[in-house]
């Protein structure tokens, strides 16, 4: 038995259910079109050049394993370039640029199957679309638009843990400035390594 307030919403919910079933009944091409409709236009997307680097992974037996990775390259222009500058500053010391000095005890490996680096994503607030329509229910909702830039990172020392690295990044000046900008509308995400 539902509560009285649930019963009162029955008619409204039935209409919502009908919309959901209409969505489920759409074929592949129709769904694909709806996904495209709500996706950020291509011209407004961040498109990055990336450069090869070496990154010291967190999960290694002796803490001295460097893997080949890629991070957003310096000196870019276009959508999201300011975020790239911030990200590179925040992650400085956590990657070795091409031609950089590798420690004498470090082990360099090109790649490890199914391994994914830890990464930091910075989402710089751009604008809010107050009347974005859900592709499924058609409901209008405010949708924030961000320029998102992600970069891989590793440990600075052979013994630094993932959580210690996150705490260190959190205290970094460039990160703090990003944290303070845009009236708290920017966002960020730390993602642990896989493998």
């Amino acid at each position, binding site marked *: 038995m539902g509560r009285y307030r649930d019963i009162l919403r029955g008619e409204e919910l039935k209409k919502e259910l009908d919309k959901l079933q209409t969505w489920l009944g759409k074929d*592949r091409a129709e*769904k*694909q079109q709806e*996904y*495209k409709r709500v*996706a*950020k236009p291509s011209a407004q*997307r*961040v498109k*990055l050049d*990336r450069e090869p680097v070496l990154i010291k992974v967190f999960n290694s037996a002796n803490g001295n394993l460097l893997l080949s990775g890629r991070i*957003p390259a310096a000196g870019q222009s276009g959508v999201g370039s300011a975020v790239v500058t911030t990200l590179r500053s925040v992650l400085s010391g956590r990657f070795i640029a091409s031609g950089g000095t590798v420690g004498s005890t470090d082990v360099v490996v090109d790649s490890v199957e199914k391994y*994914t680096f830890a*990464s930091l*994503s910075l*989402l710089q607030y751009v604008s809010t679309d107050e009347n974005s329509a859900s592709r499924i229910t058609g409901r209008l909702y405010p949708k924030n638009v961000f320029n*998102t*830039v*992600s970069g891989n990172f590793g440990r600075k020392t052979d013994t630094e843990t*993932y*959580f210690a690295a*996150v705490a260190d990044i*959190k205290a970094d000046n460039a990160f703090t400035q*990003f*944290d*303070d*900008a*845009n009236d*708290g*509308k*920017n*966002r*960020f*995400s*730390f*993602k*642990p390594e*896989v493998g």
Partner: protein
Amino acid sequence: MSVFAEFKGLWIPPNAGELLYVNCPTGAPDNVFWAMVEMNVATNDFLHGRIPADVYGDMLAQHGIDPVEHVGDAWEHLDLLFRHYG
């Protein structure tokens, strides 16, 4: 979006966790910051079978995220990909 590769109009993550990771508003208090960090670690653990689904779901719910809705969105996207290109 740099972590995604565009493929025929759909976004395909190289890592399934990308569909489940959460982010955090700037200026958030420390407990929210660390909850985001821990939830993303838990997402990895869940996807690799190191913690059961109910523990992961409880953790999401504890931080105000509806687990069914959260995982459902990711599943819907994957389901679409499988049906289209699988």
